[in-house]
């Protein structure tokens, strides 16, 4: 079965550079979530989109922005990168029409390293 696709898998950037992470949800999934997981930490919710509109917002820095496009894929844009942004970034998707409690399905993540 198709899964959530994230690209790139690995990304190395320098401080103050920008980065764009992409997420392609499972086909027919209309809701996308972004999570950040630092070393030895639990995944922290950043932001979510439902039907291309932002639906919930967590601890996402102002330097970051995200959007969901008409084909339901999502991009997380990160500017003025800092060393502390080095983390694993997960995207997850679900289909809100499946049931109110169908689970989130996660991609394998993008590992961002800021040097």
């Amino acid at each position, binding site marked *: 079965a198709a899964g959530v696709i994230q690209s790139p898998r690995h990304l190395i950037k320098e401080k103050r550079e920008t980065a764009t992470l992409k997420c392609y949800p499972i086909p027919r999934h209309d809701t996308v979530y972004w999570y950040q997981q630092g070393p030895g930490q639990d995944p922290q919710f950043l932001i979510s989109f439902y039907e291309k509109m932002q639906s*919930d917002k967590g601890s996402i820095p102002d330097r970051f922005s995200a959007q969901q496009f008409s084909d339901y894929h999502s991009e997380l844009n990160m500017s003025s990168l800092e060393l502390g942004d080095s983390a694993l970034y997960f995207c997850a998707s*679900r289909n809100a029409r499946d049931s109110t*409690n169908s689970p989130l399905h996660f991609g394998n993540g993008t590992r961002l390293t800021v040097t």
Partner: protein
Amino acid sequence: DQQVKQNSPSLSVQEGRISILNCDYTNSMFDYFLWYKKYPAEGPTFLISISSIKDKNEDGRFTVFLNKSAKHLSLHIVPSQPGDSAVYFCAASVGNLGGGNKLTFGTGTQLKVEL
């Protein structure tokens, strides 16, 4: 403020025995709970869930128990198998997941099933 806590960072169990992973939460508004399993270099994989109207949900070798008064849930795996060795995350949401409502994750427990 860690609203979902897994106080045991690691657990070692012998193959064939029961694994019990515990999770405590502080937010009394949480009413939907999930367990995810995570292998290295992969995203979290959904295992089992339970809503607050139930106190037990079973799926094959996996059973989740919810004690709302104690704000505690546990995941039982029986019999444990070497392939179960992974990090297990407890997660919770306020209300259902419709419309992009976020999941809050615990800190994770590394389970090791030994031969």
